């Protein structure tokens, strides 16, 4: 019995059931359908909303922006790290910048970027990338160091050129750490994106899930608000699950 309770699917069912019970209790205690609609009404609205094109348009907008920001982040981090690996001097300078800018909340850069780009998608993308860029670059450099320390004495045996070492040793050896870092970094980007959408609502024609969330809240469509909230949470769970499965394949 205790073994069964520890199974993943049992834990999932129990945690969802507890949430539903907790919600229903709140619904009954508050007795305020405007703020706490019943589970049944949320579920009914959920199936209605996912049939509307507006929901899928906002969903698409958000997910595409997430992918764009994630790709820009991966590209800029890879580029910075590669340049840092070329020279210890450049690396020292870069590490200094990481030290300066890592504690700076990326939201603090909104006024600067909006001076150049206004409150636009470009500003959003830059803020999202910066929410994780310094942290991810710094940690990637540390990960590569760890790989070098572990494998360098073995590599010396092989008399391989740098390209062969890079392809057959450095990339696969650092893959588990890089996937782990990616799992953390995409959540930072995701949170920043949703926060920006909520904070700024519709920006210059941009209308994502967060914008939709604040829009329905303003219209007091509270059922729909909860549905969007659930969609945001579910999207996070699905992406996280995907990355987890992927990183398990590279776990050596």
């Amino acid at each position: 019995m205790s073994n069964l309770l520890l199974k993943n699917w049992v834990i999932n069912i129990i945690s969802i059931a507890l949430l539903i019970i907790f919600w229903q209790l709140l619904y009954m205690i508050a007795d305020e359908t405007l703020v706490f609609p019943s589970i049944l009404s949320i579920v009914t609205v959920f199936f209605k909303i996912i049939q509307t094109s507006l929901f899928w348009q906002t969903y698409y907008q958000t997910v595409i922006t997430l992918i764009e920001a994630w790709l820009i982040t991966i590209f800029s981090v890879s580029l910075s790290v590669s340049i840092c690996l070329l020279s210890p001097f450049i690396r020292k300078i870069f590490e200094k910048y990481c030290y300066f800018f890592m504690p700076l909340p990326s939201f603090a850069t909104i006024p600067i970027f909006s001076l150049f780009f206004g409150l636009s998608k470009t500003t959003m993308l830059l803020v999202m990338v910066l929410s994780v860029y310094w942290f991810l670059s710094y940690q990637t450099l540390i990960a590569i160091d760890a790989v070098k320390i572990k494998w360098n004495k073995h590599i010396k045996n092989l008399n391989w050129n740098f390209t062969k070492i890079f392809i057959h040793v450095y990339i696969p050896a650092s893959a588990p750490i890089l996937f782990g870092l990616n799992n953390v970094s995409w959540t930072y980007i995701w949170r920043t994106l949703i926060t920006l959408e909520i904070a700024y609502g519709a920006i210059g024609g941009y209308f994502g899930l967060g914008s939709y969330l604040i829009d329905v809240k303003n219209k007091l469509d509270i059922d729909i608000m909860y549905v969007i909230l659930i969609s945001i949470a579910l999207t996070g769970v699905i992406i996280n699950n995907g990355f987890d499965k992927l990183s398990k394949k590279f776990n050596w």
Partner: protein
Amino acid sequence: MLSITDLSIAINGQNLFLPININVETNSITVLMGNSGIGKTSILNAISGNLKYNGNIACEKHFTIFQDNNQLFPWYSIRKNLDLVCNQTYILTVRDWNLEHLLDYKPDEISGGERQRFTLIRGMYSGAKILLCDEPLSGLDSLTRYFVLKDFKNKITELNLSCLWITHDLREAKFISNNIKLLTKTKLLSIKRNISEQSFIKKLGN
């Protein structure tokens, strides 16, 4: 050939041993023995270029088999690990050592002893002229170790290799070596292959 002249290694400013000379001829196995912490592994690290030293080391292309038993890349199968490094056909030895059925496994899926044997094969067929082995078969049972050592000894001649082999096991040393060297703090002693265990322990204690 491996030729070491006036080698000394200092850790935190302290010399591990007084300067020593070692020569390992082609087609021969020199066994290096000594108390734990005396500096045997440090000598291997110095030859491999992983540790600073004083003196001269002249060494042909070498392959070091470290004690940590984790030299195979865990992201590749054993076959790929061997194919990437070996430039000669290794399959006969793999067959002789009864390891052929493990070629498509990943290193984490086989035992430590099996990993050790594959690492040794990888070194033997890597194209290196000198093998530097730090207790490379410590994880094997006596029978398998005897069999592997016997074949390894033949392969050294067959493949025209030289080997510097570290072990703590006197019987293994006697069985495999052409020369046995005992490293102490003050000197490097040459030991006769017919030395008794009591005499060896006495020398080890001196």
